[in-house]
């Protein structure tokens, strides 16, 4: 009994210290006033205003407003736990699958609120595709992986059309020449980088308008990463892309605009070249110069 009591006391002490540090983070060092830089885009595809996300009691996103322009790549950077992935997952309502996650605010895709009751989540996700952190090919053949989306949305009228979509998507993902002779092989037999390009091919096979990428290169080696980055740049011609990344170099290489998140707040957003060379907010500067994160 006695040891238990001691442990409880120790735990309480631990709780308190945690609270104090959280307070310190919130108060003296980090005072959020308003987002620095322009949240607006000339030709907005997605418009988000005053988005708040709660996981139960805990607030993960505070009042974030941001535009994503057509045919631009926007990078979201920030330290771990800053809410950038949560924010990304709001854009195609992937947060719906998480229990007690509530989203409030306006998120519009081409002027239609995607959280509207009338909005069908299935058609939304066909328009806003997603590529995940870890390559997650289905336990099916390479061909079936790419054909899966067009099949469930009935995009192909015939086998020939489906073949065409699969080939086209694999070509655009830069994977066709590597897999054209073994389309029946399991998707999981590919290397990590190839698997991730397969997942990208799978996503573009449904011809979405927006592609969300959640740290798509974090599980890949530098060469595979370089290939994906090249691919992202090419995809920009046809798609609007939002990418969450931990690598500031990657953000600088692939994006036109960059948004810096901190503790659930959108601290600064601006032209990528500008933000990295001349950050306006102290926190952004600290982060990109490597003082934390």
């Amino acid at each position, binding site marked *: 009994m006695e040891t238990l009591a001691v442990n409880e006391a120790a735990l309480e002490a631990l709780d308190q210290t945690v609270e104090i540090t959280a307070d310190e983070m919130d108060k003296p060092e980090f005072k959020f006033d308003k987002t620095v830089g322009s949240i607006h885009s000339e030709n907005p595809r997605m418009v988000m205003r005053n988005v708040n996300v709660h996981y139960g009691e805990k607030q993960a996103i505070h009042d974030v407003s941001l535009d994503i322009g057509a045919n631009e790549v926007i990078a979201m950077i920030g330290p771990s736990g800053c809410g950038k992935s949560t924010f990304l997952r709001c854009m*195609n309502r*992937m947060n719906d*699958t998480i*229990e007690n996650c509530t989203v409030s605010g306006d998120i519009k895709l081409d002027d239609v609120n995607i959280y509207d009751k009338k909005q069908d989540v*299935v*058609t*939304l*996700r*066909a328009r806003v*595709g*997603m*590529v*995940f952190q*870890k390559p*997650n*090919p*289905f*336990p*099916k053949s390479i061909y079936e992986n790419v054909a*899966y*989306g067009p099949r*469930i*949305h009935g995009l192909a009228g015939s086998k020939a059309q489906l073949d065409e979509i699969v080939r086209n998507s694999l070509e655009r993902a830069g994977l066709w020449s590597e897999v054209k002779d073994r389309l029946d092989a*399991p998707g*999981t037999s590919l290397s990590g980088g190839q698997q991730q390009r397969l*997942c990208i091919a*799978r*996503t573009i096979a*449904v011809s979405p308008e927006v592609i969300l990428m959640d740290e798509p290169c974090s599980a890949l080696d530098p060469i595979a990463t370089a290939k994906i980055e090249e691919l992202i740049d090419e995809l920009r011609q046809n798609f609007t892309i939002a990418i969450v990344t931990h690598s500031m170099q990657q953000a600088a290489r692939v994006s036109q605009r960059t948004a810096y998140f901190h503790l659930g707040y959108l601290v600064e957003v601006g032209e990528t070249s500008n933000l990295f060379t001349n950050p306006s907010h102290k926190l952004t500067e600290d982060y990109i110069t490597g003082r934390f994160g």
Partner: protein
Amino acid sequence: MQISTLLLILSLIVLGAYYLGLRRSLQVAGRPGKRKHTLHSLPSYYGLLAALWSGIPAALIIVFWVAAQNTVITRLVVDALPPEYIASVGADELTLVINDIKNLASGNIISGQSGPMMQAAAERYLHLQSISRLALAMVVIALAIAGMAVIWWRITPGLRARNQVEAIIKAALILCSTIAILTTIGIVLSVLFESIRFFKMVPFTEFAFGLDWSPQIAIRADQQASSGAFGVIPLFAGTLLISTIAMIVAVPIGLMSAIYLSEYADKKVRAIAKPLLEVLAGIPTVVYGVFAALTVAPFVRESGEWIGLSVASESALAAGLVMGIMIIPFISSLSDDVINSVPQSLRDGAYGLGATRSETIKQVVIPAALPGIVGGILLAVSRAIGETMIVVMAAGLAANLTANPLEAVTTVTVQIVTLLVGDQEFDSAKTLAAFALGLLLFIVTLCLNVIALHVVRRYREQYE
């Protein structure tokens, strides 16, 4: 000295060896602070090594001694009996005499006459026993101390005590796993030998392909129903029929409840429903049997009558239904685990493409979980084939060769039970048939398990 006392002394010596080994290692290493040498291993490993060296050989000697002692002493006692006497009694009677001598020695009632020769033999028996015990005690204690001493001399800072202790422990682990394998082999062999005796009386072809099962053997020549028939086909047909009914009940219900629990149910429902479902697995099969015989079978018969079918009061349908209910938790619990272990990233991938929940489950989650689900189902089939109590109580004893689930059938397990229940002579074809049935049952479930492993491996190659 009693064996228990000896064991107590041995464990004290082993404890002492541990302590001495520990001390010795510290001693050779020098005092703390100004150590002369660095020990190769932690001091406790030297203690353990000393304990193992003093304990293991001594313990092995005890085991072998106790195993061999009886044979050796009996042999010596028999050799001391007058040769004319041994010649006058046969080999069968001699074992009886030996038994009498042992009984006399331990003060029990004996079957024959207790003459002076028997008394002398019993005394000799007791005498040899006490010598044996004393010798064992001396050998064991000497060995334990010798083992300890050997290590005492061998302990130097460079002795690789940890590696040696780990090697000994690894050997012990291998020994443990061998025991399980040896037991299996032992069971198979014992069933096999009895079956071979059976097949000397009844030809294998008659057993394997006969369509008639009535294992009555006449005790007197003039008895009715004197010819036994040992055709196993009706039994396997019955087993197959009942198992099929059980699987038809259990697979859909089990699989669907697993899908509901893992994919649709919210946390609260899951927390209550899953343990409730698993309670089914905890019900003794005897209770299921009572339920089948007293509740389900009459219900099946009455509802059959109501729609104009004649149903036997003990029907394959009733037994199969209840067995199916018994198997539901196996399938649901195993499938639930497998479905839960499908990574969330796969589901996310499907949702991210705009798949609905049911599309995700049908086309992504279930295919990914299939090897595990198939494995679980085949395991459940093995279980259904081997199940005994429910069928004993609800399926009946009549060996009908029929595919009609409304008739009474019997199964392999039921027949094994009925053949061996009560006083039996173990040299008649009737009782030996039970072993042949057991062997066949074992082979069938073994084949099923091999197929299950094969299927699982093939799917795994495809899906992972």
